C-alpha cells in the first residue's frame, strides 16, 4: 500500500471527487496559483483549470456565503479556510445560513457544502491563529463536523464529506500535513460518524480525535513499556455525527475513560462526552471520567510553553496514571 502524506491524501480526495462530479468546485484563498498555503491543493489548478479551482479574495464571509448560495443550486463547493481560526469572520454565514437554511425552509433547500482547513495550535502563531472550533461548530444542529488524524482517514472522510448532502466542517491540522501513512491505491470511503479503535487495550480507554490521537498513541506505548498499562484508543474521527456506540463499547471493556482533546476545557467536546458516558455507562465506570485539555487560556505564543499548554504525550501519560491511581 502506498505511503503518502496527509496533505496528499486530502489532495487525492479532492482530485477524485473533482473528477467524479462536475459540480464540485474547490475555492479559497491561495488554493489555485499559489498551490495552497499549505500545498494541499498543489497541482489541482493545472489539472482541473480555473473554473474548478478558484482563488478567492480575503473575504471569508463573502466567499463562504457565496458557497452556501451556490450549493443551494446544486454546486458542491469545497471551500478552504487557510486557518479554521478565520471562521469567526464568517460565523453568520456558517451558522445562520449553512446550518439553518434547510430547517428554516422546511427541508426545501439543501446545502451540500464542505468547509475545510487546518484547526490547531502548536505552531507558535498566537491566540488568533490557534483556534479549534469543532466544539462550537458541533453545537449547531444542521452541520456535521469531522476531525481526521491520519492520511487514510483524511482521504476517506473527505470523499464522504464532499458527497454528503449536508454541510460538513472538515478540520485538518498543519502539524499533520507532512505525516505519512498508508493509503490504498484503490478508491475507498470512510463514512462519517464511525470511530476507529487505533489501539486495542484493556486497562483504560482514551477517547480522542485529531492530532491528540497520535500523541495518545505515543503515551499509550510509554504506559505499556514503563508501567505495564494497556490503553485502548478510540479515535472519534467525526464529532457530529458521533459514534457513541464505539465509545461505550470500549468503556464497558476497560471501565476507565480519559478524554484527550486539543481544546479549551469549558464546553468542549469532552464535556459532552463525559456527560453521555456517565449517563449511559454509569455502572461500568470504576472511576470518574478524566479529561485532558489545553491549559485554560488563550493560546500562548512562547514556543516551549505552548507545547505545555496543549496535550502532549507526557501530559497524557500523567493524566492516565492519575486515572489509574
Amino acid at each position, binding site marked *: 500500500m502506498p505511503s503518502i502524506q496527509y496533505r496528499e491524501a486530502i489532495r487525492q480526495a479532492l482530485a477524485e471527487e473533482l473528477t467524479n462530479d462536475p459540480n464540485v468546485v474547490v475555492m479559497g484563498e491561495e488554493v489555485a496559483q499559489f498551490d495552497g498555503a499549505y500545498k494541499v491543493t498543489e497541482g489541482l489548478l493545472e489539472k482541473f483549470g480555473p473554473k474548478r479551482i478558484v482563488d478567492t479574495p480575503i473575504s471569508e464571509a463573502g466567499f463562504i456565503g457565496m458557497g452556501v448560495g451556490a450549493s443551494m*443550486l446544486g454546486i458542491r463547493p469545497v471551500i478552504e479556510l487557510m486557518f479554521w481560526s478565520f471562521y469567526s469572520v464568517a460565523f453568520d454565514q456558517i451558522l445562520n445560513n449553512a446550518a439553518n437554511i434547510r430547517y428554516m425552509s422546511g427541508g426545501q433547500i439543501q446545502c451540500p457544502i464542505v468547509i475545510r482547513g487546518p484547526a490547531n495550535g502548536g505552531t507558535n502563531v498566537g491566540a488568533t491563529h490557534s483556534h479549534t472550533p469543532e466544539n462550537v461548530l458541533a453545537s449547531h444542529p444542521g452541520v456535521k463536523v469531522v476531525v481526521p488524524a491520519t492520511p487514510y482517514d483524511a482521504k476517506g472522510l473527505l470523499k464522504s464529506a464532499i458527497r454528503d448532502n449536508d454541510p460538513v466542517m472538515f478540520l485538518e491540522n498543519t502539524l499533520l500535513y507532512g505525516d505519512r501513512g498508508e493509503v490504498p491505491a484503490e478508491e475507498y470511503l470512510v463514512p462519517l460518524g464511525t470511530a476507529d479503535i487505533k489501539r486495542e487495550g484493556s486497562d483504560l480507554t482514551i477517547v480522542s480525535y485529531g492530532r491528540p490521537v497520535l500523541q495518545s498513541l505515543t503515551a499509550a506505548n510509554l504506559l505499556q513499556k514503563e508501567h505495564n498499562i494497556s490503553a485502548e484508543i478510540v479515535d472519534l474521527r467525526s464529532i457530529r455525527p458521533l459514534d457513541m456506540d464505539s465509545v461505550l463499547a470500549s468503556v464497558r471493556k476497560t471501565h476507565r475513560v480519559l478524554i484527550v482533546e486539543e481544546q479549551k476545557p469549558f464546553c468542549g467536546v469532552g464535556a459532552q462526552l463525559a456527560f453521555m458516558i456517565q449517563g449511559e455507562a454509569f455502572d461500568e465506570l470504576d472511576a470518574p471520567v478524566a479529561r485532558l485539555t489545553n491549559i485554560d487560556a488563550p493560546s500562548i505564543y512562547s514556543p516551549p510553553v505552548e507545547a505545555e499548554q496543549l496535550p502532549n504525550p507526557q501530559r497524557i501519560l500523567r493524566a492516565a496514571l492519575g486515572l489509574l491511581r
Partner: protein
Amino acid sequence: MPVPLALNKKPSAAADHTARTGTGKPDHSGAPVNSALSPAQKVELYRRMVRIRRFEERSLRAYQAKKIGGFLHLYIGQEAVAVGCCSLMGKDDHVITAYRDHGHAIAVGMELNPLMAELYGKATGCSKGKGGSMHFFDPTRNYWGGHGIVGGQVPLGVGLAYALKYKGLKGACMTFMGDGAVNQGVVHESYNLAALWELPVVFVIENNGYSMGTSQARSTAGELGKRAEAYDMAWGVCEGHDLYEVRASMAGFLELARAKSKPSIVEIRTYRYRGHSVADPDNTYRAKQEVEEYRRTKDPIQVFQNGLVAEKALDAALAERIDAEARAEADLAAEFAEASPFPDASDIQKDVYWEADNPSQRKSGGRLFFD
C-alpha cells in the same frame, strides 16, 4: 432592449425610457418593457400589489389578535418594488431577500394560504412552521428567502448567480436588501466578488429611508448605489412607487446580468407605512405627516391604479372587485391558517439533516442528535 453601461459619474437609471408628460412627471408607461404588456397583464400586476397589501393588513390583524408570534415586518407601501422586479423574471432568474419578505413571496407567485399558515406557525406553512415571517422560501419558484440577518443573504445571492454562471444558464439573481444593509461588511465583500468574477446579479437596495429607526442621513455616508463605482459596476436609482419605472429601470440591469454577466446595484427609493416591525411604535423617528404625505401622493397602488384608469385598462368597478377579491382571499388564508394544525413536537427534529430525513440513503453512522 438598451443595456445600461457602467457609468462613472452618474447613475445609469432608466433615463433611456423616461419621457416627460404634460404634468412634468416622468412617464415610463411607454418603456418597451411596459408597452409590451397587454391590458390584462397590467391588471394582473395591479392585482398582485393589492393582494400583497391585503395579505399584510390581514396578517397585522392576526398579529394583534395574538395569532402570530415573533416579528412581523410589513411591506405596505413598497409593493411596486417586489411586483415590478419579480414581474420581469424569466425561468432562470432568481430572487433572494431579507426579512421583509412577504411581498416578494407573493410577487413570485406563492399562494397566500401557506404564507399565512407560516405566520401562524402551522404545519401547512411554506416552511412547515419552522421559519416564520422572516423565512419564507419557495425554490420551485426560484425564491430563496426570506433571511433574518441584515445583509446576511447578500453573499447567498452572489452564490446563486455564481451557480447560474457555472452552469451556463442565462439568468440573473435579484439580491434584495434594505438601505440598512449597505453598511454591513459582507455586502461589500459580495459587491467585490460579483464584480471581480462578473456574476449575473442585480443588487437591489430597497431604500425605505430608515434602517429600523435610523434615517439614511444618520446612518449612511454618500449615495447608496454610488458605492458601485468603487467596484466598477453599473448602478442606478429609481422611484419605487411607480411600478412602470421600476420595471423600466430593472429590465436593463437584468439584461446586463443575463446577456453580459455583469453585476449592478439599483437603489429603489420607496417607503414603508408601518414601523420597522409591529414592535416599532413608530413615534420617535419620523413625523406622522411624512407618512401621510407619501401615502397621499405616492401610494404605489393608487399611482398604478390612476395610470391604468387613464389607459382605460382598469375602471373603478374592476378595481373595487380586485380589492374585494384580495380581501376575501386574505381572509380565507387566515381561516386556512387558523384551521391548520401546528407542527407536532415530533417534527422538531425533521428538516435538520438531509441524512436524518432520508434514512434509507444514509451513509454515515453515529448519532446526529444529542437529546
